[in-house]
């Protein structure tokens, strides 16, 4: 929490935006779990992979920012209404781009994130093969 507030201060400072205290209470489902534990688990799993847009580097599951609370409310109410987690994620990505999602998706901007580990796997295999065979 300290870090978040500190981070919010930094964020505010860097974009020249500052806030007086908000007066409305948090969204209903921002701090309230869903009745169905399976649904709550699904919601929690999704929230941990969605990025808080007003924080420096946190998921909406880990943030006290009001907007993060509103996003949690959206996630929980949609899951309660029967939406699939991936559909909710797609809905957010449609609005904010890949930035809002921590979940790795293969796209034309993120393919190196997957190509490189594959390459590392091949290189590792190659190094091990050569070094350990040659030294037998």
């Amino acid at each position, binding site marked *: 929490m300290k870090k978040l507030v500190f981070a919010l201060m930094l964020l505010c400072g860097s974009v020249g935006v500052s806030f007086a205290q908000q007066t409305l209470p948090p969204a209903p489902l921002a701090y*309230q779990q869903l009745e169905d534990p399976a649904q709550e688990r699904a919601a929690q799993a999704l929230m941990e*992979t969605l990025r808080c847009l007003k924080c420096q580097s946190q998921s909406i599951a880990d943030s006290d920012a009001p907007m993060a609370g509103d996003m949690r409310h959206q996630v929980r109410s949609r899951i309660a209404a029967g939406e699939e987690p991936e559909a909710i994620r797609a809905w957010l990505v449609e609005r904010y781009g890949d930035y809002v999602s921590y979940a790795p998706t293969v796209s034309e901007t993120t393919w190196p994130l997957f190509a490189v*580990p594959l390459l590392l796997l091949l290189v590792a295999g190659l190094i091990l093969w050569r070094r350990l065979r040659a030294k037998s």
Partner: protein
Amino acid sequence: MIAELGLAALWIASALAVLQLVGGVLAQKQGGSEMAKLVRPAAITQGLLAAFAFLMLLWLFAITDLSVKLVATNSHSAKPLIFKLSGAWGNHEGSMLLWITVMAMAGGLIALVERRLPEKTMMATLAAQAFVGIGFYAFLLLSSNPFERLPQPAVEGMGLNPLLQDIGLAFHPPTLYFGYVGLSVAFSFAVGALMTRKVGPDFARAMRPWVLGAWVFLTLGITAGSYWAYYELGWGGWWFWDPVENASLMPWLAATALLHSVSVLAARDALRAWTIMLGVVAFSMSMLGTFLVRSGILTSVHAFAVDPERGSFILFLLALYIGGALLLFALRAGTVTEGERFSVTSREGALVFNNVMLSAILGIVLLGTLYPLLTEAFDVRVSVGPPYFNPVGAIFTVPMLIVMTIGPMLRWRGDSFDRIKFPAAIVASIMLAVLALVLVLGSYGILPVLGLAIAIGLGVASFLPLRGRKLTRVPIATWGMIMAHFGIAVALFGMASETAFSEEKLAAVSVGDATDVGPWTVVLGSVEPVAGPNWTAIEGRLQASYDGSEPILLNPQSRNFWAPPQETTESTLATRWNGQLYAVIGNQASDGRWQLRLWWKPFVTLIWYGGILVALGGVLAIIGRVRGDLKRRYVRARSDQRREDAAAL
């Protein structure tokens, strides 16, 4: 006066660094020249002067000398002394001075105690250390002077931010810095060896305690940082793959690989090029981390006061040092002759596997951390976080940990799998049994399940190298290895358990109501206003009872500071042998009920106990190696003496 003394000491130290560099380089050409005699004293004096400068800064902060700009912006006369002192390094200039001081002292220490290296290599090493130091001296003196004076002394300091007055936050940086900058020694050793092309067991034995020392500090620093984040952030997370966290993990990964590589080089004179490379990479990761944190180039919760101009200076230093070292490596490493041979099933083989896996993990963390930077250059913003790092890292971590269970049992040079197949079978069956058990008990993610199975298997396997040995005869360094590996298993168990078995409850309760989480029942007794020196808070008085036993009292707070106005939550923890109850109180809803956030985290404390065990293992290893080394030196000196005596007769 004191500030000027400190500044003068820094200038003289930087001049000595230049002398050290010149002398060390000249010593390569002419061998045993006059300049060479000056290098060691220059290094030692440089260390003393830098330490003196840092002490002067501490003094200025202790007395709150408001005519010094750094003190005026970062301190306050009303701060408790401990935070005044820690404020000295809790800012950009002060922490850079700490960096320089540790570097200079490390150089001085090498010059003072290191006797195993051939003279030329020693000179090259000290020259490399000085070369890196000069860049940072320049950065400090020319653009980040900690001793700068204000034209008029300030009336009062600006540094009363309560968020920065925390013991954990105060001491986390120095521990990490001893680690980061301690790796500069390994870097200098590596560069020195590349210059003189003398890489061998003596070189490895000389480098090893320095690597171990830095690695121990890094382990402690990372463990402490993780616990602090867990305690302070109010959501019970202990690792976020945040860029600055990764900036501390990457040197650690490189140092761990280096540590193992150096052991192979020391024992069997193999993996020469690899050891050199890792020595360069480890400190490069430290410098990269400093750049990422101070340049503002990456978005992170940790960002210090960022300044792109400073970022450019550091980037230039990176280009000079890392680029220079990598260039030297590309030119010279090919001529570092190959070492001894070994077979697949041997300790060397297992350690090669270990190194390759660790390097791959390092590569992935590096890629994931820098990737947003890369895409931003193309105006695309992506987020890389736990959903990427955890599974992709696991691809390499899981095989590495599995090999780690049997690696230490293998002999050097060549062994047969047959010899260890019985203990290996035991470990394998334990892991499979745990796997089956957990899968039967419930549905959890694949990673935590694997983690639990491997942790238990590794925990048992760590002690298997002891089998058939007389416990009192086992070398201390071996105990170090056992403890460190066991520590990894313990930490892994904590991580897996927390991930799989944590339970969370968000509840809105009125006073007198009860709610439950896991085996705990928590009653909100009352909510009281409390006040502190610069804050007011509402404090929840909770009675938490585990499985119906005696209730424990917990008092989480929601604090409001007024200068500057901020709101923070102070979580409280109830620790048992089998986990922690984590409680946070939030705001009051319009119907009068209070927001409570509760977690039951089974075995979460093992994460940090494991980290401490790992560090302790490292300490034992240092003791064991240094003792062994001194003994060897004594024996050699005695046999030399005897030979002299015999020849004299």
